[in-house]
C-alpha cells in the first residue's frame, strides 16, 4: 500500500534545504555590482576631506577637468539639487562649504579608467580652513562644543521606525547643547526611594566604541540614465524600494523614473539600508550620459561608511540583600557622528524592562560628533545595551552571592508585563532560552572547568541573555501557478542570508506542493510588489506572512477552478501529489498542470491562478538568545582563548534549520568581534587611526572554536508557521557573556569593549 502525501507532509517548512543559488556562489558565477561592466562604462572616484571639521574656502577643479579621459568633475556648486541642513548622509551628496567628518566627499570624478579618475583627484585643489572638531561625544554634548549640524537641521528618526517600532516620549535636551540631536526620557516609580531602601547599589559606566558592520563587499553602485530621463541603479542594497525612495528624494524626481535592480548583496548587516553613494553616482551618470560605476575602497568603507554608534551607558542599580530589585537609573549616550539617525528606544526598553524594575529613570541622548554618521548594525544598540544590563545583573548576583541564572530568571519579564513605554511584552521565549542554556554542560560543569586550569592560566565561564524586539514593515508577494503546475513566487525581497529558500518553503507548505515545484524571484522595483527592507529580523516574519497568504490565495483559486471543473464543492476537495481530487473519489480529479494549462489556453474561460497578499503588521515577535562562553586567560598578557561557545536561541519555528544555524553562528561571531577585537579608533583630530582590515581586527577562523547551536521553538502568534526573526538575536549577548566569563576567571569586571589583552592585563594590574 502506498502512502499518499497530503498537504501536511509536503516537502516545505522545517526542512534543512540548501539555498538554490549555492552552486552559483561556489563557482564564482554570481555577479555583484563591481562585476557588471556595461559598454561605455565610466569609473567614479570621490575626493574626500582629510579634516574632520573644516571650512571649504575654495575648490579648483580646472586641472582635473583638463586631464584626458576625465568625463566629469562635480563639486557642490554643480549640483542644484543640493540643500543645506541635509537631514541624512544621502542628502549631503557633496560638502557645500563645510566638511563635517574626515572622509566626507567634496568632489567627484568620472573617467574612462579608474587610474585616470584617481589621477584626477590629485589634480583637484581644495583650500581648507581647519576648524576645531568635536571628537568625544561626552564633550560634544557640552555647551560651547564645535557645532556639527547647521542650525535647524531635523533629527532623523526613520531608522528607529524601520527597526524597532517602539515609540518613546521625547526628553528635554540640555540648554545650549548644540550637538544633542535627539533625547528620550522614561521613568516609573520613585528611584531615589528605591536606592535609599537598597542594601547594595552598584554604579558602572559601560562603553562600546564605534564598530563597522564589516560586510566583505564594499558599497557599490552602477547608474545609467536613458534618453527619456529614466535612471536605472544596479545597487548593493538591503532594500531596493528604500533606495529608490531616498534617491528620488535627493534628486527631486519621481520614483517612477528610477528602477533599482537589487544585485547580489555581499553583506549588509544594516550598513546597506540607507543610500550612501547612489546619489552622487547617479549625478555623475547624468552629467556624462554614460553608465558610471562607483565602488568604495575598504579604506573608504572604514573611514566614511556608516558604522554603528559608540554607546556609553551609565547604569546605577539597587537591590535588597535577598535579591529584590529596587531601582535603576541610566543615561545612554549614542554617538551618531555627523548626522542624526540612531535608535534611542531600544536601549531604554532593554535597560528598563528586560528585567522588572519597580522604579526606573532612563535618559537617552543622541549626540553628533565630527565623525562619519552611523547606521544600523544587526540589532542596533542591543549588543551594547545588553553588555550593560546583563553585566550589571551578573555582577549584582555575584555581589549578593546568588546564582546568576536563577537571579536573572526570577526577574526576567514575562509576556504581558509592561515595557518601559507601558506597552505589554509580546509573546517571547526568553525564559525557555535561559533554562535551556543553564542545562547545557558548559554551564553545569563550569566549576570543574574553572578548577581544572593549570600553567597559570585562569579559567572561567560566562552566560548572557539578550535579544531583539523584532521589526515590522508592510510588504507584498504574489504566487502564480504556471502552465506546467509549478509555482512562481515574486517579492522584492533582497536575499542575503538565505531567506528566499525559507520563503519558498513557506509557499510550498501553504499551497500544498513540494519545494522542488517552487521557484522564487526577487524582482526589481519596476516589477515586484512593494517590499520592505532585509533588516530588523523581519524578512521571514513579515514577507513570510505575505508569501504564505499569497500561496493560500493561490490555493483557494486553484480549488475553486477545480471545483468548477469537477462539479464538486471546494470543501470536498483535497490537493495531493500535484492533483486536486474529490475526497474519497480518487478517480475524480484534475492535475495542477491541467489547471495551469487552462489558465493559459487561447479562448479558455478558466482564469490563471494568481495569488497575492500585501499585509501590514502590528504585532512584534521578540526573540531571545542566550550564549555561553568558556575561556581561559593569561593573567600576565591578558590574552584570552575562547575554548567553547554555544548559542541557544528561540526562533519560533525553524523554517529552514540549516539557514537558521548559519544565522546563529555568523551573528555569534560578529558579537564576539564586538566583545574581543573590534573598534574604530580616532585621534584627537577626529581622524581614523585604523583604516585597514589589518588594523581593524575582525575574528578569523583561527581565533575561534566551532559555534554550537541549539534551536528553541516557542511559536510566535503572528509569524508564518510560528516563526520569529532569527538574524539579530545572536549578535546581542557575547560582549556580556565574555565579560561575565572574564569576571568568573579573574574576579575583575571589565566595562569597556573590546576586551583586548591590553585592557584585561591593565585591569588585572590595577586590582593588584
Amino acid at each position, binding site marked *: 500500500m502506498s502512502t499518499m502525501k497530503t498537504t501536511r507532509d509536503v516537502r516545505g517548512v522545517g526542512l534543512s534545504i540548501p539555498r538554490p543559488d549555492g552552486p552559483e556562489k*561556489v563557482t564564482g558565477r554570481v555577479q555583484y555590482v563591481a562585476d557588471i561592466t556595461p559598454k561605455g562604462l565610466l569609473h567614479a572616484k570621490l575626493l574626500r576631506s582629510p579634516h574632520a571639521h573644516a571650512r571649504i574656502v575654495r575648490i579648483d577643479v580646472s586641472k582635473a577637468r583638463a586631464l584626458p579621459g576625465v568625463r566629469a568633475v562635480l563639486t557642490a556648486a554643480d549640483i542644484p539639487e543640493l540643500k543645506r541642513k541635509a537631514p541624512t548622509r544621502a542628502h549631503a551628496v557633496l560638502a557645500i562649504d563645510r566638511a563635517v567628518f574626515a572622509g566626507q566627499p567634496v568632489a567627484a570624478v568620472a573617467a574612462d579608467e579608474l587610474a585616470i579618475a584617481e589621477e584626477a583627484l590629485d589634480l583637484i585643489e581644495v583650500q581648507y580652513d581647519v576648524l576645531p572638531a568635536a571628537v568625544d561625544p561626552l564633550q560634544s554634548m557640552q555647551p560651547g562644543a564645535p557645532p556639527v549640524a547647521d542650525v535647524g537641521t531635523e533629527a532623523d528618526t526613520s531608522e528607529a521606525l524601520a527597526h524597532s517600532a517602539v515609540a518613546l516620549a521625547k526628553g528635554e535636551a540640555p540648554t545650549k547643547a548644540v550637538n544633542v540631536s535627539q533625547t528620550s526620557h522614561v521613568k516609573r516609580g520613585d528611584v531615589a526611594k528605591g536606592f535609599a531602601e537598597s542594601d547594595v547599589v552598584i554604579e558602572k559606566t559601560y562603553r562600546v566604541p564605534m564598530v563597522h558592520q564589516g560586510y566583505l563587499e564594499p558599497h557599490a553602485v552602477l547608474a545609467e540614465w536613458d534618453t527619456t530621463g529614466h535612471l536605472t541603479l544596479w545597487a548593493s542594497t538591503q532594500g531596493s524600494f528604500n533606495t529608490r525612495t531616498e534617491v528620488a528624494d535627493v534628486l527631486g524626481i519621481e520614483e517612477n523614473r528610477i528602477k533599482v535592480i537589487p544585485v547580489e548583496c555581499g553583506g*549588509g548587516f544594516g550598513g546597506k539600508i540607507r543610500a550612501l553613494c547612489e546619489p552622487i553616482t547617479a549625478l555623475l551618470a547624468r552629467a556624462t550620459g554614460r553608465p558610471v560605476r562607483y565602488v568604495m575602497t575598504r579604506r573608504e568603507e572604514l573611514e566614511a561608511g556608516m558604522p554603528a554608534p559608540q554607546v556609553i551607558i551609565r547604569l546605577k542599580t539597587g537591590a535588597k540583600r535577598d535579591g529584590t530589585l529596587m531601582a535603576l537609573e541610566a543615561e545612554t549616550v549614542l554617538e551618531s557622528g555627523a548626522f542624526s539617525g540612531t535608535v534611542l528606544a531600544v536601549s531604554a526598553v532593554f535597560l528598563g524592562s528586560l528585567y522588572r524594575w519597580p522604579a526606573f529613570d532612563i535618559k537617552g541622548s543622541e549626540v553628533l560628533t565630527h565623525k562619519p554618521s552611523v547606521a544600523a548594525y544587526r540589532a542596533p544598540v542591543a549588543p551594547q545595551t545588553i553588555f550593560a544590563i546583563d553585566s550589571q545583573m551578573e555582577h549584582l548576583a555575584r555581589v549578593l552571592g546568588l546564582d546568576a541564572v536563577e537571579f536573572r530568571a526570577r526577574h526576567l519579564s514575562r509576556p504581558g508585563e509592561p515595557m518601559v513605554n507601558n506597552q505589554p511584552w509580546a509573546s517571547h521565549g526568553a525564559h525557555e532560552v535561559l533554562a535551556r542554556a543553564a542545562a547545557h554542560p558548559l554551564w553545569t560543569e563550569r566549576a570543574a572547568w574553572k578548577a581544572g586550569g593549570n600553567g597559570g592560566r585562569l579559567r572561567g565561564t560566562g552566560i548572557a541573555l539578550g535579544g531583539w524586539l523584532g521589526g515590522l514593515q508592510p510588504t507584498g508577494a504574489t504566487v502564480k501557478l504556471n502552465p506546467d503546475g509549478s509555482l512562481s513566487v515574486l517579492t522584492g525581497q533582497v536575499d542575503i542570508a538565505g531567506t528566499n529558500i525559507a520563503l519558498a518553503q513557506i509557499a510550498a507548505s501553504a499551497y500544498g506542493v513540494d519545494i522542488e515545484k517552487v521557484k522564487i524571484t526577487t524582482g526589481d522595483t519596476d516589477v515586484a510588489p512593494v517590499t520592505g527592507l532585509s533588516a530588523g529580523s523581519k524578512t521571514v516574519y513579515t514577507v513570510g506572512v505575505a508569501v504564505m497568504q499569497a500561496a493560500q490565495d493561490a490555493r483557494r483559486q486553484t480549488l475553486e477552478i477545480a471545483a468548477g471543473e469537477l462539479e464538486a464543492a471546494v470543501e470536498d476537495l483535497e490537493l495531493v501529489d500535484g492533483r486536486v481530487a474529490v475526497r474519497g473519489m480518487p478517480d475524480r480529479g484534475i492535475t495542477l498542470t491541467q489547471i495551469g494549462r487552462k489558465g493559459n489556453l487561447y479562448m479558455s474561460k478558466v482564469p490563471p491562478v494568481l495569488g497575492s497578499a500585501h499585509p501590514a503588521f502590528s504585532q512584534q515577535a521578540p526573540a531571545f538568545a542566550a550564549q555561553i562562553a568558556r575561556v581561559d586567560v593569561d593573567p600576565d598578557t591578558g590574552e584570552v582563548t575562547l575554548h567553547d561557545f554555544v548559542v541557544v536561541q528561540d526562533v519560533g519555528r525553524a523554517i529552514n534549520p540549516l539557514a537558521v544555524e548559519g544565522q546563529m553562528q555568523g551573528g555569534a561571531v560578529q558579537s564576539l568581534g564586538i566583545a574581543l577585537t573590534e573598534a574604530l579608533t580616532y585621534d584627537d583630530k577626529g581622524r581614523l587611526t585604523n583604516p585597514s582590515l589589518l588594523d581593524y581586527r575582525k575574528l578569523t*577562523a583561527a581565533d575561534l572554536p566551532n*559555534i554550537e547551536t541549539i534551536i528553541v521553538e516557542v511559536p510566535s502568534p503572528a509569524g508564518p508557521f510560528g516563526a520569529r526573526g532569527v538574524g539579530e538575536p545572536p549578535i546581542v549577548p557575547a560582549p556580556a557573556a565574555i565579560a561575565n566569563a572574564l569576571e568568573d576567571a579573574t574576579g575583575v569586571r571589565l566595562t569597556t569593549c573590546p576586551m583586548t589583552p591590553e585592557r584585561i592585563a591593565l585591569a588585572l594590574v590595577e586590582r593588584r
Partner: protein
Amino acid sequence: MAKQILRASVNDEPIEVLVQPYETLLDALRERLGLTGPKEGCGTGDCGACTVHLDGQPVASCLVLAMQARDRSVRTIEGLAAGTLHPLQDAFVRHGVPQCGFCIPGVLMAAAALLDSNARPSEEEIRYGIAGNLCRCTGYTKMITAITEAAASMQEGARR
C-alpha cells in the same frame, strides 16, 4: 606608460592580454579577462577574497602585479573544477555555507590549496589554512565542517 603583453596560462588556457605595468593580477583577471570570481574586498591583502593559485600556490591576487604572472600558471575559482563541482564546492553547497557569498571564491581557493598540500588536515590546520580569508556571515563553523568532509571524500575517491 606603455602597456605590456602578459602571456600566461589561466585555468589551463593560454592567454595574451595588454596590461598596465602597475596593474594587479586581480584587475587583469577581472577587467581584462572577465574572470570576476576573484573579489576585491580590501585591495591590501588583508581579506583573502581575491585568492587565486599562482603555480599551484595560493596568493592574494590584489598584491601580485599582473606581469608577475608572465609565463606562469594561474587558477581562479572559475577553473577549480571543469564542468562539475569540486568536492569542496559540493560540500559548501550541501552544508549551506554561502550566505552573502562574497568571500566564498577566496575561501575555496585557499581550502583547495590546503588540501593539495595536506590531504587530511586537522581542524586546527583547516582553521589556520583559511585564517587569511575573512568571512562576515558564517562564523566559519560550517566552512570547517564542509572542508573536513570534502577532504574525507577526496581521499575516499583517490583510494577507489
